């Protein structure tokens, strides 16, 4: 067992456990994107960076707990870093509800980079899911640097892919599309409204009933819900 301090609070944890686990043990939530408890830690998104006593920022999901370590999970430098990382993420993939939520939680209100509307943030969860959980290894990373992407060998139909859908399931950005984003802004901001807009329309808060992003009432703008709007899962939605 090793003893360390997280945000000033002492915690004892198994040698070799990650700082993320140590923080979770104390109930401190650190935002993550490329981490999943059922898959190996990758440390690619850097959202979970925490500040060590010597001033370095390290990814909590991969850094091992060590005796006497002092960790701060929400220091000003960490928060500044997370905000910039989220800004970068939004500039790649603005139409992801998960990323828009992260933006809302971290007060990211603008994206100053030219927006590319891609569908992948290269977190690698799908690759690890395919390799470690499904043992298929049908997809992986190709190329390097800014040309890096995820695909099958030669971009051809894979013979080892079993169409299990695990990659779709685990993807943090393609699970739910945010419907509020309109050009030119990459930040929708509607999820930041303190007063949810669905209660006047529906019986209950729609997001928490599993229809996150589907009901469309909180999506800002002049569009209205009326009898011509199509329905999804029994509810009217904007298109």
């Amino acid at each position, binding site marked *: 067992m090793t003893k360390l301090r997280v945000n000033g609070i002492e915690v004892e944890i198994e040698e070799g456990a990650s700082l993320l686990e140590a923080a979770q043990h104390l109930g401190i939530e650190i935002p993550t994107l490329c981490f999943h408890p059922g898959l190996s830690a990758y440390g*690619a998104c*850097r959202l979970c960076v925490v500040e060590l006593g010597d001033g370095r920022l390290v990814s909590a999901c991969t850094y091992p707990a060590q005796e006497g370590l002092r960790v701060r999970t929400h220091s000003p*430098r960490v928060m*500044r870093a997370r905000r*910039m*990382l989220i800004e*970068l993420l939004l500039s790649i993939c603005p139409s992801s509800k998960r990323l828009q939520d992260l933006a809302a939680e971290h007060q990211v209100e603008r994206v100053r980079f030219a927006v590319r509307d891609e569908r992948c943030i290269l977190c690698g969860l799908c690759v690890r899911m395919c390799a470690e959980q499904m043992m298929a290894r049908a997809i992986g990373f190709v*190329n390097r640097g*800014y040309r*890096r992407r995820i695909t099958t060998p030669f971009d051809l139909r894979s013979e080892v892919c079993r169409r299990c859908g695990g990659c779709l399931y685990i993807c943090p950005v393609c699970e739910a599309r945010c419907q509020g984003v309109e050009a030119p802004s990459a930040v929708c901001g509607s999820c930041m409204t303190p007063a949810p807009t669905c209660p006047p329309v529906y019986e209950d808060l729609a997001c928490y009933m599993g229809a996150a992003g589907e009901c469309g009432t909180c999506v800002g703008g002049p569009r209205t819900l009326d009898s011509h709007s199509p329905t999804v899962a029994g509810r009217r939605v904007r298109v």
Partner: protein
Amino acid sequence: MRVRTLEQLRALEHELRATRDRKPCVRVCGGTGCRARGSEDVLGRFRAVLESEGLADAVEVKFTGCHGFCERGPLVSLAPQEVFYQGVEVDDVPAIVTQTLARGAVIERLLAQDPITGKRVRQEQEIPFYRRQQRIVLRFNGVIDPTDIREYIALGGYRALGDVLTHRTPEEVIEIIERSGLRGRGGAGFPTGKKWRLARAAPGSIKYVICNGDEGDPGAFMDRSLLEGNPHGVIEGMIIGAYAVGATRGIIYVREEYPLAVRTLQIALAQAREYGFLGEAIFDSAFSFDIEIVRGAGAFVAGEETALIAAVEGRVSEPRQRPPYPVQRGVWGHPTVINNVETWANVPIILERGPEWFARLGTATSKGTKIFSLVGKVANTGLVEIPMGMTLRELVEEIGGGALPQREIKAVQIGGPSGGCLPKALFDLPIDYESLTEAGAMMGSGGLIVMDDRTCMVDVARYFMDFLRDESCGKCLPCREGTQRMYELLTAMCEGRATDADLDLLEELAQVVKETSLCGLGQTAPNPVLTTLRYFRSEYEAHIRQKRCPAGVCKALIRYVINAERCTGCVACVQPCPQHAISGQLKQPHVIDQERCIKCGICHEVCQFGAVEIV
């Protein structure tokens, strides 16, 4: 023949030295630079002429490793006359044989000239380029044939190894290296003795030592010259290190862009095995060790320790989080010591001459010498070795010979894409790890690029960002996306499309990339941007606010104009222009049609009268 004891080695050394000293010798530089300029043909001609003069048995002719003064190649030195010739062409060879070799008469025009007095000097040591250096690690470059182990032995090679295996314990060796103060020459400057001590203490019966010959910094060719010019110096260092650390296997990782280095190493390793310096029971001790070569496949990031390990293991060169450090868990989980080529080359020297001798060179915190590739906008380009602590000014002005004609030196870039640009105002800084880091740059592996008033610092930052966004492994977000975005911002500045807000954004982004990237590549990627912003902010502001490139480099912000007063109307520039944009009759001043001009610069290249100006 197998050398089993130190006495046997000494005897062999004496015998070989006596033999080699009997014959005069022609040493042709076989470094890549000189080969590119025809030194292979020069060597061939020497052999042919000596053959036809009946002197083939009387005079030895050989290729040596890079002799350093690349600007003046092809280089030929003669022993024992101690004459140093530069710019030797194939047609000069007969004269050298009949005059210098046969009669001892020097050929004046092939001698170097003292830049101040204009006098011709005969010996290498009299040339300022060489005089101010301290060539210790490079002492055999330009002297020995790297493909013949006997030449290395004749000059005392493998003596240090023999001494270590006969008289010293591994602990003692580590202590000697610690006392010497040797620090890693790959860039970070980590104390070598400390690294070895950690590896020795790590549990495990299988350990590795690796020589990092990836040398990815563009503008650097120190390691290449060592591997090609004195491979045994590196090999001997690795064997000693392996003994100290308790390693059984060694790997030399060479980047694939250096096929000559790979070939030279293969020959050297085979010879070392033949003589018993590698293999079982070296020097009849209990220590067995061998080295294999692993070739890189073209990735700058492979120079990073954990990425290099991945490449050795047959995977993509993706770095991983440290701890655990390679000395604890490295190649296939075994404790691994990774040191740079130059670091290994220093080891036998330290063991032979003693740590106190080594510690007297250099400064209090940076001991020994450092090899630099002095390139760029400077008169004397080449490979130099200087004691730590020499000032940048002395290196650039005295050894480098100062600026090119009509130009003014503005800055030096040290440390490659991880380093930084230091302005002329800081040229009195001593070259040591701490001073350079404090100024925002980094010692790096030794690439030192001189820049003058025709170098645009914004363009330099953009160049490095272009390099880094391509070389980034792409694993972590801040590096992959951050370098791309920094590149986009810098491109906008070079094209006159940026605003002040973009400058703020660049700085903010650079800071986050530096702090959150997973490995050294990303963590140091913003350095070129941050140092140029720190010292050359006015250039950035000129690009942004005035849409002007003061150095006359950024194509979108410059124009090529013909100065009517200087133009002689020779029409030399008219035909080569790919856009047919230049008009003008013979003897009349020519004019460039700005609408058609694509600013390729060919007219500027061709004009002999300096009439084409960049405004």
